[in-house]
């Protein structure tokens, strides 16, 4: 079902947020759909937490509108929104046991004792913490606290669950396990999740869509595949996965792409961008999409250079190749059936034209 045909559950319209003199958000617009797992991804300080807090009602935007189901909720206080948050450090109430923590929201709604008891039981079951109801938060492990925090929010059946780096404090193994569990929960409950992380791997593995943020703006919003395969900017390409950015100029512009001049070598490339002759270009090629051979091959997309580094890393080998014009490429190759090249050799790197993409160079401007 194409995403655009559905009615948006949540719409952010041109949100701005200024703290003192610093602009944390500068024009954020986004539609989120029913049942979606959307991830806000970006480096720290990019404005993802501010965006989340505005959705939760914990922060007021300086400008812009938040719509839930088409209704303007911009100035609605947090307690009146059908949106709940799992906080980064869980924010469990230390003076209440697990049961009371989970029942807190229902108590605020004036639910009966019986209702609270039943709902709490159900939630403990959902997060696999049966029998832990009487424990204090201080007696729980990090992973267990995490589950309580999720149960405490889900018990209110929110329209949207906001999760602010919920796995940030957990160790790697637990993190992997919780990722799967969260995804399972989201799918079985059908609740919309808006998830914050700065871990691109987590974002790629869990999300239906990723909204990549930087400096208070969305850089690119799309499916994990789209972000990985067709990054629009150099930042997007390098933040998600590992990439090489090859700099050159447009030598010729054709209907199906461009010819790019990189230090005297001409390389064909696909592009949807509007390019004029002589424009500076930036080509993104993933490290694992590069092939290496000792001698030149019959491929249109190839460069040759000196192998300056070759490092064994288990299933793959990481190589660094210096081109004649000084640019450096990093490549990864399966260790099975390796090409016998040693450091100092002249080697040839080649790739399929479709696996490289011309991106807008937004890195230079920033630095």
């Amino acid at each position, binding site marked *: 079902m194409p995403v655009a045909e559905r009615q948006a559950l949540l719409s952010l319209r041109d949100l701005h947020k200024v703290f003192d003199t610093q602009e944390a958000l500068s024009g954020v617009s986004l539609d989120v759909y029913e049942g979606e797992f959307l991830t806000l991804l970006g480096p720290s300080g990019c404005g993802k937490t501010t965006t989340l807090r505005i959705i939760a009602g*914990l*922060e*007021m935007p300086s400008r812009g509108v938040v719509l839930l189901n088409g209704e303007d909720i911009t100035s609605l*206080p*947090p307690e009146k929104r059908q949106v709940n948050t799992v906080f980064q450090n869980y924010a469990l109430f230390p003076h209440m046991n697990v049961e009371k923590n989970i029942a807190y929201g229902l108590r605020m709604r004036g639910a009966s004792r019986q209702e609270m008891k039943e709902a709490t039981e159900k939630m403990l079951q959902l997060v696999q913490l049966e029998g832990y109801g009487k424990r204090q938060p201080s007696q729980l492990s990090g992973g267990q606290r995490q589950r309580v925090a999720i149960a405490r929010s889900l018990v209110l059946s929110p329209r949207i669950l906001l999760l602010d780096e919920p796995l940030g404090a957990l160790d790697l193994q637990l993190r992997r396990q919780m990722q799967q569990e969260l995804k399972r929960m989201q799918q079985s409950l059908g609740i919309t999740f808006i998830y914050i992380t700065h871990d691109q791997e987590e974002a790629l593995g869990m999300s239906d869509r990723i909204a990549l943020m930087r400096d208070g703006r969305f850089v690119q919003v799309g499916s994990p595949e789209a972000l990985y395969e067709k990054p629009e900017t150099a930042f997007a390409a390098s933040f998600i996965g590992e990439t090489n950015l090859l700099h050159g100029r447009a030598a010729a512009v054709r209907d199906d792409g461009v010819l790019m001049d990189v230090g005297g070598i001409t390389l064909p490339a696909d592009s949807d961008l509007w390019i004029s002759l002589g424009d500076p270009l930036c080509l993104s090629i993933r490290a694992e999409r590069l092939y290496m051979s000792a001698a030149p091959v019959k491929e249109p997309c190839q460069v040759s250079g000196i192998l300056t580094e070759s490092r064994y890393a288990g299933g793959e080998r990481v190589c660094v190749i210096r081109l004649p014009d000084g640019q450096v490429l990093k490549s990864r190759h399966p260790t099975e059936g390796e090409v016998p090249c040693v450091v100092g050799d002249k080697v040839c790197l080649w790739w399929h034209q479709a696996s490289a993409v011309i991106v807008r160079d937004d890195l230079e401007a920033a630095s």
Partner: protein
Amino acid sequence: MKRPVHRREAMAIPMAVYAALFVGVSLMYIIGLSFLTRGEGFTASPPVSPHNYERIASPIYLRSLLLSLRLAGLTALFCLLIGYPFAYFMAKARPKARTWILLLVIVPFWTNALIRIYGWKILFSASGPINQAILALGLVERPLKLLYTDFAVLVGMVYAMIPFMVLPVYSAAERLDWSVVEAARDLGANPIKAFFTVVVPMTMPGILAGLVLTFIPSIGLFFLSDLLGGSNTMLWGNMVHNELLKSRDLPFAAALSVVLLALTGLVILLYRKRGGSAETMVF
């Protein structure tokens, strides 16, 4: 959550009003009084002039001021010399022992200061336990005069003030990251050098708070010098006390207090400059 916190500020209004009324207004009032002249009975009247301050600038009062400052300084110094090691060792003790030692330090706080000072009066008296002990040992032939001396006042002051040094230093030392001390040792500092280059600077907030907390009250504790120093020790606090209740000269007593207030202000200003705050003064 930004908006509710804003509204919450209003909850502090009663406290601000109370403080403005009883602290602000009353202090302003005695500053005003200090420029007036003693009137009939217990009143003050114009003309407005700095004559009270001119009177303070005389040798008797300046001597008393110097004496008070010297005693307060000595009190703070001895409190530091005795209290710092105590607090430091306490912070290094095992948690269980720590709780008990802390309790033992705090409990005397809960008993009346006057009664504790009175205990010293018994100890120091000519027929008291100390004199009996040294007489029995044959160290002296006649009882020593201990009571009503500067020494007795100093002992009493240090005794009364030492918890105010121990507690802030302890709370600073307790928060100390001991791995930093280990790092200093690892980098070649011997225990003493590590102590002076790492532990002391890191517990400086506690030391400063302790010095202020022991120095300032020492200037005004007139009952202590009354009980242990008799009429021999005329400290600033005693001057104020006498002017008010014996001479019944309210404007002059006010002027004496204003001088004390100014001194205190100066100390607090210095303390603030070194980064101290009122918060570190309550534990």
